């Protein structure tokens, strides 16, 4: 299987921030959600992938091209939109579309017209008068209308109202229909990531905490509700991430869950009343909190 | 309606306006007013030349600029501002660059030769002979109109880029009454700032008065493209406009004769000239639309050859009139000869040496669809 993105041992240090030992692989045809709090290094990873920042070490390969050397060829295949990207205020969306069209041969005008309609945008309106949501949709239109092999979307849904968010997700989801096209997108809205990504990469303080396919990632976490006497051995169980006690009720959150774990907890004298799957948001918050405590 | 076809009456009018230039320049040799300033000024002159020539002078170029404005609008409409500019570069800038040195050199050479051969030298030639001036002052000669056309095309680009729609809406909102009654008053200051009759703005730099004066006619023609019905509104006024123009021109000539450098009189002259210019331009346009709006065989051919004729006519006129200076004949005969020979020479050279050549393509557009100088329809294939 070919990979859309390969990062191996990538390091980058500047200011007080350091990206460390990033190993990341996105198989072609997959959608990966990059999750992390603000300042975790998500945007830096995007910029490295675009060849805009040269890493201090490690290897970067995007769409089969080494970066940043192969950035021109790679960028022909990439559609990139980021939260801090703006279009020319005095110019219309039509002007931008014509500009992009003149660069990329695979620009699809009928699809662009369809996206215009779906996003409820007017082509002749100057960019200066657009709202945040319209601007994001305009950027996305410029990327999507040329069917890039790889979409790099840095916070595409941030700050959007629910309707606009739905429209944007729908447009990204259309990419899923093609098994050669891949998406890497970041968000601190875990619901978006949970919904459309195949893989989840967890970034915290410049380090990748976890990279997994979403279903086994979600499958590996459990919230266990039980009752019983507190014993310190409970916290020492290796899978244990979070423990909360409220009287005799104990709420445990574990990773790498397996059936044997319940038996182990029962051995420790706990009566288990519920074992639930967790959503990404919960996992996200739990692991960040756990990381802070270490 | 007219999008994909030729606008016959404007083609015809433009041909006539350009040919009127030949008549006018040939007549200047016999004008008492120009006697001291014209290279081929003849001993025999007549005040009737002044009466007729300066009347023609008041509206032939305004009419030409109005027509050019119309065709510029048509090009913008068909190909956008960029397309219009591209087309105009080939049709206007290139001829200017090609012909200006040739025309200037030819006139300079003719003048120098005449200075040493002619017995009855007019004052200007005498001056050349005595002072042995190195060369005539830098001038675009009769090709100045090409420079102004380029300037106006550039202004269209500027206005379109800066999205100045205000000016356009003003023009579009003009009623016939305002146009005929008020527009001339706006033009008067421009004319008042120069001597009367107006000199040719042939210097290397644009003259503010000429930019304003001819620019107004150009943009009137530009607006006309979007108001095709405007002209027919003037038709009932046709006779009145003609008579009023003649009256105003008579008053102007009388003032010119009696005035003694009086500022008020000069201002009045400017006003009268402005009225004659506007009224006669409008009169010509509506008359052309009424009577010349068809493909007229002989005019058609003249129209094709008129651009070339106009570009090269002045040296030819000079060459002939230098020869006529020492001939004892009446001015009407000399004038008729210079006009006829010039036209024959120009049109014959057009027919045999220009029409089918690359030069003909530059001047008239692609072969097979000669559209005069201001219009092509490369976008249309048939």
């Amino acid at each position: 299987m070919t990979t859309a993105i390969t990062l191996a041992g990538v390091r980058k240090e500047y200011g007080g921030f350091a990206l460390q030992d990033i190993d990341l692989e996105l198989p072609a045809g997959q959608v990966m959600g990059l999750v992390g709090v603000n300042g975790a290094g998500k945007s830096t990873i995007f910029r490295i992938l675009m060849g805009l920042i040269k890493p201090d070490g490690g290897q970067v390969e995007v769409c089969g091209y080494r970066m940043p050397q192969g950035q021109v060829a790679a960028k022909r295949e990439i559609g990139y939109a980021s939260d801090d990207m703006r279009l020319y205020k005095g110019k219309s969306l039509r002007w931008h579309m014509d500009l992009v069209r003149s660069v990329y041969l695979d620009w699809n005008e009928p699809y662009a017209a369809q996206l215009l309609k779906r996003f409820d945008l007017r082509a002749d309106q100057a960019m200066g008068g657009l709202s945040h949501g319209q601007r994001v949709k305009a950027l996305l239109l410029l990327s999507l209308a040329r069917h890039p092999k790889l979409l790099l979307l840095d916070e595409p849904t941030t700050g959007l109202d629910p309707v606009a968010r739905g429209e944007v997700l729908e447009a990204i989801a259309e990419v899923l229909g093609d098994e050669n096209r891949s998406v890497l997108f970041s968000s601190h809205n875990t619901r978006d990531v949970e919904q459309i990504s195949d893989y989840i990469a967890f970034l915290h303080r410049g380090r990748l905490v976890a990279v997994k396919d979403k279903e086994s990632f979600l499958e590996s976490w459990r919230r266990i509700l039980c009752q019983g006497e507190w014993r310190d051995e409970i916290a020492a169980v290796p899978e244990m991430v979070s423990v909360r006690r409220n009287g005799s009720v104990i709420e445990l959150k574990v990773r790498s869950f397996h059936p044997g774990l319940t038996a182990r907890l029962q051995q420790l004298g706990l009566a288990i009343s519920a074992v639930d799957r967790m959503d990404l948001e919960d996992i996200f918050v739990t692991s960040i909190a756990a990381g802070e405590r270490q | 309606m007219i999008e994909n076809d030729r606008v016959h009456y404007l083609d015809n009018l433009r041909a006539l306006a350009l040919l009127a230039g030949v008549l006018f320049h040939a007549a200047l040799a016999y004008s008492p007013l120009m006697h001291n300033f014209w290279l081929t000024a003849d001993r025999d002159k007549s005040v009737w030349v002044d009466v007729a020539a300066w009347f023609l002078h008041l509206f032939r170029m305004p009419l030409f600029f109005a027509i050019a404005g119309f065709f510029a609008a048509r090009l913008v409409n068909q190909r956008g501002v960029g397309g219009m500019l591209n087309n105009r570069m080939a049709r206007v800038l290139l001829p200017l660059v090609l012909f200006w040195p040739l025309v200037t050199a030819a006139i300079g050479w003719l003048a120098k030769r005449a200075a040493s051969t002619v017995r009855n030298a007019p004052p200007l030639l005498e001056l050349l002979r005595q002072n042995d001036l190195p060369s005539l002052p830098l001038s675009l000669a009769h090709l100045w109109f090409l420079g102004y056309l380029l300037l106006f095309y550039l202004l269209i680009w500027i206005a379109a880029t800066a999205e100045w729609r205000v000016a356009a809406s003003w023009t579009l909102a003009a009623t016939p009454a305002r146009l005929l009654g008020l527009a001339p008053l706006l033009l008067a200051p421009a004319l008042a700032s120069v001597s009367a009759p107006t000199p040719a703005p042939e210097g290397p730099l644009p003259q503010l008065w000429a930019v304003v004066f001819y620019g107004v006619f150009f943009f009137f023609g530009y607006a006309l493209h979007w108001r095709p019905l405007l002209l027919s509104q003037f038709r009932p006024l046709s006779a009145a406009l003609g008579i009023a123009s003649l009256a105003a021109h008579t008053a102007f000539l009388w003032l010119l004769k009696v005035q003694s450098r009086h500022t008020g009189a000069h201002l009045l002259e400017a006003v009268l000239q402005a009225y004659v210019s506007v009224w006669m331009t409008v009169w010509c346009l509506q008359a052309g639309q009424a009577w010349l709006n068809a493909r007229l065989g002989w005019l058609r051919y003249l129209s094709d050859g008129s651009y070339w004729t106009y570009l090269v006519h002045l040296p030819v006129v000079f060459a002939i009139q230098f020869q006529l200076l020492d001939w004892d004949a009446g001015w009407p005969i000399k004038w008729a000869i210079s006009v006829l020979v010039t036209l024959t020479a120009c049109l014959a050279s057009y027919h045999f040496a220009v029409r089918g050549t690359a030069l003909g393509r530059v001047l008239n557009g692609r072969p097979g669809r000669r559209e005069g100088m201001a219009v092509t329809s490369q976008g249309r294939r048939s």
Partner: protein
Amino acid sequence: MTFAGHDLQMIRLLVVKDWQVYQKQLAGYLAGLLLALSLIGTGRTWSFNAGGLLLLVLLVSTGFFAIGHIVVNERKESTLPFVMSLPVTALDVFIAKLIAGLLIYLVPFLVVLSTTILLVLATSLPDGLLVYAMLVYFFMFLSYCVALCVAIAVESEGWNIFIQMALMTMLSPFMIWAGSLQSIATNVRTNHIVWSPEVLSVFGGEVLVTALALAVTCWFHTRKASVLQSS
């Protein structure tokens, strides 16, 4: 189409893009220049002086705003990430900026320059003025090049304004100094156009400074590791 590893078509596209982004302002300046030329052409003393002054003011301000618009604003308005998302290298973008910056300035500059030459040669102004005028014009062009280079290298609005102001204030000392040069002072009011070794060496100096500014900026840019360092 590539040349020495640079995508010429992309560079051309970026230059056209900058031209279009600045087009509206440029149209305004061109209109102003035409007005100034018409005023000069009118030939009266007051309009000649007013037109000449307008010409110089427009030339200086078109340069000032061209740099602000196509270099400083690109970062300030966060359009740089968009440009960099196109299939270009940072060096291509830099080259395009340099070309666009020069081109946008050269249009009004050449209009003014050729008008001046025409005026000096075609009117009663002493032809000797030409040498002096050329020296001053090329100093203005040099100032613009240096300011453009600094703006491209530093991309900071504050520095840009500072440098431009500093260069502008140097204009009049330069005019006085150049006017005091022996061959200029003796010929400026005559009809002799004299390119003395003294004048030519000043020209050479001007060309050298311009080339140096461009070279240093190029060197600086090839060493830059990241385009979007600051986040």
